[in-house]
């Protein structure tokens, strides 16, 4: 009882300019949607994958991030002696007390300055973050005034090439290597030996202590025990949870802003799609009247035009995804205001995001097409016949 699909397909193709323009218009909206979601996704991925659920990060009670936290040497020692702490291959406890500061560094291409995180780690620090790999140069020699730079920021800032020197409070640190860390936020940091960095930067206080749990399921018990200890005055979080929280605000802001723009664009696209469909239907009133004459019902007419609108929108969705794909993997960076430091991340498009884009396009097709399709189905037969 339905009007043949080939009729719809060929009618759409038969009006190439209008179809193309509308599809491109819808495509742009879909592309922006996909990219906005990919941006938030990439950002979140960078931060979320930063921590491991088997690691615990200890900070001062009340601090909202490592930056405003402080843990004393005594506190670090107490933690090191805990039975719950896992031991490394060499038998030493896997504990890394760390200092964290920000330095203001010049971006490349004269695009101003931004804050970059410097983290002082113990030997165990590298083992604790098991996705860290040196990809250029070498690791730091213990006790040396050397630093390694995360790959993501190595190319974005001045003075981070191998052999360059970073000056911190009258001491020069040589850049001896670049590292990756599975795409996580650590790739936007500068790492150095704690023993050398601490006296230069912060004196006697660490910002945090990170350790690996022997039995990750005991986290709740460990947390309760340590947080109640009056000598320490600390709060505990799973490392993965800590970084997920940091990502939260900015990722949400990105998604909200992206969605806002997309919705406005979608409204414009819907008007445009409606316009195209009205025009298309207007020029085909004789065809519609003929169909009605032959005995096709208004329902079939409405469905047919709705299908056409959806076809155009689908084409637009595909165009949009194709437009967005080349941007996948492009790195960008911004300041994460939760940590006040620069975080570099990349657009990350997933099949799910592409799927959302297509579904969104189809939605646009339905919303834009429904009114014109309904109007087409209400076309009074006799009136059209008389015009013939």
């Amino acid at each position, binding site marked *: 009882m339905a009007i043949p699909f080939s009729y719809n397909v060929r009618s759409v193709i038969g009006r190439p300019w209008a179809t193309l323009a509308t599809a491109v218009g819808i495509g742009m909206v879909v592309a922006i949607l996909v990219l906005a979601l990919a941006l938030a996704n990439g950002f979140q991925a960078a931060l979320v994958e930063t921590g491991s659920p088997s690691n615990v990060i200890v900070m001062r009670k009340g601090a909202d991030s490592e930056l405003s936290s402080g843990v004393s040497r005594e506190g670090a020692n107490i933690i090191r002696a805990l039975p719950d702490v896992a031991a490394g291959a060499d038998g030493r406890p896997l504990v890394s007390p760390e200092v964290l500061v*920000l330095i203001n560094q010049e971006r490349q291409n004269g695009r101003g300055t*931004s804050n970059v995180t410097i983290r002082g780690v113990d030997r165990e620090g590298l083992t604790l973050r098991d996705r860290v790999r040196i990809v250029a140069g070498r690791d730091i020699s213990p006790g040396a005034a050397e630093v390694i730079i995360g790959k993501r920021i190595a190319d974005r800032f001045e003075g981070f090439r191998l052999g360059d020197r970073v000056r911190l409070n009258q001491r020069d640190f040589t850049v001896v290597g670049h590292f990756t860390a599975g795409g996580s936020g650590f790739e936007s940091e500068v790492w150095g030996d704690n023993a050398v960095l601490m006296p230069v930067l912060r004196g006697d206080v660490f910002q945090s202590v990170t350790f690996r749990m022997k039995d990750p399921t005991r986290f709740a018990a460990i947390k309760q025990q340590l947080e109640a200890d009056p000598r320490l005055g600390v709060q505990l979080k799973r490392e993965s949870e800590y970084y997920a929280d940091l990502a939260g605000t900015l990722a949400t802001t990105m998604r909200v802003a992206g969605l806002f*723009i997309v919705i406005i664009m979608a409204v414009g696209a819907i008007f445009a799609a409606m316009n195209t469909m009205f025009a298309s239907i207007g020029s085909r009133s004789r065809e519609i009247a003929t169909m009605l004459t032959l005995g096709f019902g208004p329902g079939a007419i409405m469905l047919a035009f709705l299908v056409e609108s959806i076809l155009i929108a689908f084409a637009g969705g595909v165009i949009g995804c194709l437009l967005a794909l080349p941007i996948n993997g492009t790195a960008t960076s911004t300041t994460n205001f939760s940590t006040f430091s620069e975080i570099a991340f990349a657009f990350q498009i997933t099949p799910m995001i592409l799927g959302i884009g297509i579904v969104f396009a189809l939605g646009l097709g339905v919303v834009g097409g429904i009114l014109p399709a309904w109007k087409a189905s209400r076309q009074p037969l006799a009136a059209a016949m008389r015009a013939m």
Partner: protein
Amino acid sequence: MELLSLVWTNLMRNKVRTVLTTLSVFVALFLFCLLHGVTDTLTESTKVGSERRLVTRNKLSLVFPLPMSHLEKIRAVPGVSALTWSNWFGGEDPVNPREFYAKFAVDSKTYFPLYASDMEIVAASPAPEGTPVPPGVPANLAAYMNERTACVVGEGLLKKMGWKLGQTIRVNGTIYPGSWAYTIRGVYRPKVKAMDAETMFFHWDYLYENTNRNAMVGIYQFALSDPTQAAAVGKRIDDLFENSAYATHTETERAFQAGFVSMFGNIPFVIMVIGLAVAFSIFLVAAVTMMMAIRERTPEFAVLKTLGFADGSLFFMVLAEASAITLTGGIAGSLLAKFLLEKSGLGLPGFSVMFVHWETVLLGIGVAALMGAFSGLLPAWQASRLKIVDALRKVG
């Protein structure tokens, strides 16, 4: 003038199409100007800071403090006048931790005189008659000056948090742990664009005493006795501390604030690109629609020509039609964007006030006019060059 009424009749003939096309243009331009407004605000904020005041911070980054011992040394540098300092407190509101606002511990007796030109105290708790205030401090801050735990808040902040003058507020310290209490003794209103209305200021001494005298200075701020000497004075100060444990970096307040904007990275650029993509795509559809609409009317143009209308007037008519649609949508969209962004609560994090320059609105309207011309030009030219005979043949 009959021509214009013809244009109007034609536009009204297919109301749906005219309205939809105008709406498309409206939305496109609205978004275009909105996004441009974001970029405008960001660039604007790099230009509004004072160039007569300088800021000295730790050379490594803002995260590192400066010692009190720098105070007298900086004061002694020639060219420095009216020196003060402040410290970023951090902290969270215990009731709404997500509702963030800036809090500074300042040396009140020197801070408020230095910034008197930037803010005006519009409300203050009363103090006993004749209570003295330090020179340069607004007289109505007498109560504030004499209370250790008092604070001054921006009127925007007061409204946003639902506070009242005289109320005691609490803050959970993050950098300086503990529960801190403040009493609101003054409300300020910014007098310049560089200042916002959502900051809280309190006494440096309160912070100093409650941190076992360990709190250090965040930044030093001062005015220049000779405004043309900014670079020279800055260099003098930085050279002074170059080899100390706390090297400094001195720059104008404008440069300092611009530094924050540069933290956004190339986001402004991305926004611009999106704005252009948006405008382009929707215009494309509007343009094609208009072109198709006009092409359908070829027979009518032939008839008009038979009646004696000149080629030129047909050209004008078609162009007028296309332009009417795009200009209506364009002007409305641009103006709405300006109005919405500036008057409503929408905003970027950290920017309580947004701007859309008039130049942007004009740009938007210009783009709309251009689009009208572009989509009307080809059909207009075709309409005017039409040979009556050819066109009429299509009618039958």
